[in-house]
């Protein structure tokens, strides 16, 4: 059997620290910070990074993928409705048709492929990291996020009085799901008001989620289920097509906005 190389504990620690520090230093400033590594955030990150943009995804959990690992009722089969199977094809995720326009895939396979696609395209991640607040310019434009370690935020303040740090970007995408945490921070500051809950009659409207994906405030784009909270749209059911397509749309809008900044 071939022997493992003789690198010691200190070498391993140095490798971790130096590579982490190097990446962190580099991504203190990026083109786009995405809050939330669920399907819409990963999709947005993957597509934007493919255009050569510098993208950092902030995720409060250790694991990436959000709810994309499992479908409803803790069962690990995920469904998408036409036309979102196009994304499954694009990512090389195997699936089968269960009825006209409805497709099912293995959650672990689908989610890991999406994460890998984001990584392959150049997206970097700050996992175990919570979004605490927005960074705003004097003109009210969103230009970054205030973040901290998840364990710090989870402990009582008297034990862990650890200040957060701020990172900057030209664009921030809120992909935090129904919590719409980033949009809610704007609301706390009186810069935005999410719309109510008028849409309770319809079970879901995935089309409306895509239609409303876009910039909600200068520098802030909303994607995925956060769109539903922001605009008071019907909730999405346990099918993931709209989240993937909303992520695609968010990347398109972000690319346009970044281009505008270059040309203005």
């Amino acid at each position: 059997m071939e022997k493992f190389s003789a690198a010691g504990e200190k070498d391993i620690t140095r490798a971790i620290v130096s590579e982490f520090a190097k990446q962190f230093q580099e991504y203190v400033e990026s083109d786009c910070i995405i809050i939330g590594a669920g399907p819409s955030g990963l999709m947005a990150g993957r597509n934007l990074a493919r255009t050569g943009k510098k993208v950092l995804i902030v995720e409060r959990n250790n694991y990436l993928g959000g709810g994309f690992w499992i479908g409803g009722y803790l069962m690990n089969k995920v469904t998408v409705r036409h036309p979102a199977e196009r994304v499954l094809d694009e990512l090389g995720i195997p699936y089968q048709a269960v009825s006209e326009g409805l497709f099912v895939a293995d959650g672990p396979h689908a989610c890991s492929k999406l994460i890998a696609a984001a990584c392959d395209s150049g997206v970097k991640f700050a996992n175990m990291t919570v979004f605490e607040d927005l960074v705003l310019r004097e003109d009210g434009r969103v230009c970054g996020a205030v973040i901290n370690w998840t364990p710090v935020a989870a402990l009582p303040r008297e034990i862990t009085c650890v200040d957060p740090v701020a990172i900057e970007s030209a664009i921030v995408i809120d992909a935090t799901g129904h919590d719409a945490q980033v949009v809610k921070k704007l609301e706390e500051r009186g810069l935005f008001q999410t719309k109510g809950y008028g849409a309770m009659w319809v079970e879901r409207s995935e089309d409306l989620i895509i239609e409303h994906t876009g910039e909600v405030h200068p520098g802030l784009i909303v994607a995925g289920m956060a769109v539903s909270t922001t605009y008071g749209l019907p909730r999405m059911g346990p099918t993931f097509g709209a989240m993937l397509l909303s992520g695609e749309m968010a990347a398109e809008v972000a690319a346009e906005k970044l281009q505008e900044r270059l040309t203005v």
Partner: protein
Amino acid sequence: MRIALYDEGADEALNIAEVAGYLAQLVGVETELRGSPFAPDLPAERVSDYARRIAQTKIREITKKSPPGQEPLPAEIEYEKRRILGRTKAFGVPYDGLKLQRLFCELIPGEELGPEFVHIIFTNRLFATWDEGDKRYHLRTSLYAVPCLISTSGLVEAPAKPREYYLAKQQYERLGKDPLELKERFRGSFLDYGDRRLTEVAKGYAMQAVFYALTGEPFCQDKGCRLYNAHWQEEMLFAQLGSEYEFCPRHAEVLRNWRENDAERGD
């Protein structure tokens, strides 16, 4: 009398030409298919203005009467622009029906606002009206005024589905299962999106619009009459599809008399 029918993003299962043919035959008047109520050459600034004003009529909370002049978000206006221009038919948010109807009234040519015209707009937009009695909005299938609005989504969502459906739906939601699966279990007992029965049902609602123009009263108390104002899907399907007669004797006579008088007038 002339009847103009419009398509403002109605469900694709609705055959408006067939509804027009039915009205022409039954009422004996000229009917006209006009497509979208928004003129194709509407200037961009008017598209923006209508889009903003339509977005202002959205209902934010069903238990709070929408205040006038609420400011929509840019994405809401952009979405309405795309709807006006026929680039999307996505739906799901409810609008204040009376405000929406007043807005659509502006789209009707001024010389056609008199009683000799019936304008019927089929749309897939959901709309509701405020009830001062229980202080909440109630979803509607149709609104009868100038113009009349008939919502194909309202025909699916407004009349209540069977009680067992709602009980099963609660169970599904508690289990985290997709309530859409329930539609298979209850198939046929209520109208659904893309339903092949939609055109036949819509004919009865179009006749309610005609009776509103003829008599000022679109509804009938008879549960077997197409003019019955159904609150349950079962009632709606019976009145429009299951009843042995289309119109009750009283309304059949009103229609017969009107046709005879119309022939005498030589209109």
